[in-house]
């Protein structure tokens, strides 16, 4: 059943390919804005690169959170999901995984390219990509809770970011921190292992919390 | 700590702005919060007065959010 929901969402995403690209283009545009605003001076950009790329990734993945459940809510499929014989948490995990595959993975693949734009050394690019690889699923999982809570509310999009941003901060700190540590020559395994820990914790708790939020929102 | 006169107390050893700045804002927030609750309460009691007395039994179905 888990693969049904993931397959369905990927099928939906492929049928509406523009959603995938808008998130990616948003990410690229935001990252390229900074050199224009801060000036092309290289070592300044190199210093800022991790923070800029991570904040842009965070905002890009939050962009599409609003639609995570609202389409299903409007056409009634969400009701069917709540009434499915499969536990709701598994279905929510599936949806978060689909969201990550559609928004998170393109960001991870695009990040090295943008890193070069910021003249990041090669091993820093590697650390950046792995940190994004570990961090973006956490963004999708925690974001699923925010999306579930603000289902069907007017102004829900803004509200999701207000609810979810404070919870993203640890991921942001250790994500950007790992790249900075690497560029400063320190070892970055501590950061990545913490990101991995966040990932495990959110895989266990976030779907359950999002499922109960869905039940509350659908009362 | 005995302040010889009033103006020395106000000057607070040169840090007057910061000390009184923070105390004033704190008390402003406290008083403001209390006034807000009283205002919220007064409008509510007044509104209930109209609803219940006007027709004895509450018939007007207003959503609380819009009324207050």
């Amino acid at each position: 059943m888990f693969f049904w929901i993931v397959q369905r969402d990927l099928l939906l995403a492929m049928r509406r390919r523009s959603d995938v690209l808008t998130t990616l283009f948003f990410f690229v545009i935001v990252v390229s804005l900074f050199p224009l605003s801060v000036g092309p001076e290289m070592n300044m950009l190199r210093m800022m690169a991790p923070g800029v790329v991570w904040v842009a990734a965070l905002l890009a993945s939050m962009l599409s959170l609003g639609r995570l459940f609202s389409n299903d809510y409007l056409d009634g499929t969400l009701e069917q999901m709540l009434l499915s014989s499969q536990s709701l948490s598994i279905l929510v995990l599936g949806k978060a995984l689909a969201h990550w595959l559609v928004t998170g993975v393109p960001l991870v693949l695009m990040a090295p390219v943008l890193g070069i734009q910021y003249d990041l050394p090669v091993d820093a690019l590697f650390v950046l990509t792995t940190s994004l690889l570990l961090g973006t699923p956490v963004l999708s999982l925690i974001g699923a809770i925010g999306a579930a809570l603000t289902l069907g509310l007017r102004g829900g999009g803004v509200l999701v970011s207000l609810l979810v941003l404070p919870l993203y901060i640890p991921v942001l700190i250790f994500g950007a921190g790992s790249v900075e540590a690497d560029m400063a020559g320190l070892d970055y395994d501590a950061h990545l292992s913490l990101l991995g820990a966040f990932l495990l914790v959110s895989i266990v708790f976030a779907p359950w919390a999002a499922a109960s939020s869905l039940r509350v929102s659908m009362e | 700590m005995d302040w010889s006169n009033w103006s020395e107390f106000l000057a607070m050893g040169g840090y007057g702005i910061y000390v009184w700045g923070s105390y004033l804002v704190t008390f402003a927030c406290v008083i403001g919060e209390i006034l807000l609750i009283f205002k919220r309460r007064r409008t509510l009691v007044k509104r209930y007065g109209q609803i219940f007395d006007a027709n004895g039994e509450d018939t007007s179905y207003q959503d609380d959010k819009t009324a207050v």
Partner: protein
Amino acid sequence: MLQGSDLACVRGDRNLFKAVNFILKDGGLMQVNGPNGSGKTSLLRILCGLSAPAAGKITWNGKSVRTLGEAYYSELVYIGHLSGTKDDLTALENLRISSAFSGENISEHQAVEALVDMGLGGREHLPAKVLSQGQRRRVALARLLVSKAKLWILDEPLAALDVSAIQLVKNLLERHLKENGMIVMTTHQDIDMTAASIVQLQLT
């Protein structure tokens, strides 16, 4: 056997209904009647566990629905006002996925057969967004053909259907009742159907 004991529902500030009791046995049909806004849909949503009643309890074979959770859902099919079909997916994909939700992975062939039975032959591979409202209702109702659930909860199943579809759905319901299935439904048309027991629940 589905039983509701003194159910009550509050929507916002107003209580829609109070002290609603009923018992529905195998092969029984319960029709929920009442003017618009009397809480019929709310009652159906409470019956299938989507929302909690303000008071009272619902039991399925003696056990409370709340504790049963997924076990109860696997015995139940709910078709509400919303058709539950994704516009971008074809009718076939919609049917296979919605039946997968209720745990019955049906084969492509079964799905096509069900769609043909519902009069959608030749339109299986059309995306749902090009189908009319009536056709989309047929896709939703096609789930009843493939579902093995015992309890059907249908919110105005006959709405937006043409005469032939209505007759088709009626035969479907009768067949389900004969096989000892149970149906709770709301409808504004009068249905002359034979069933082991017909319960009329009137909501004021």
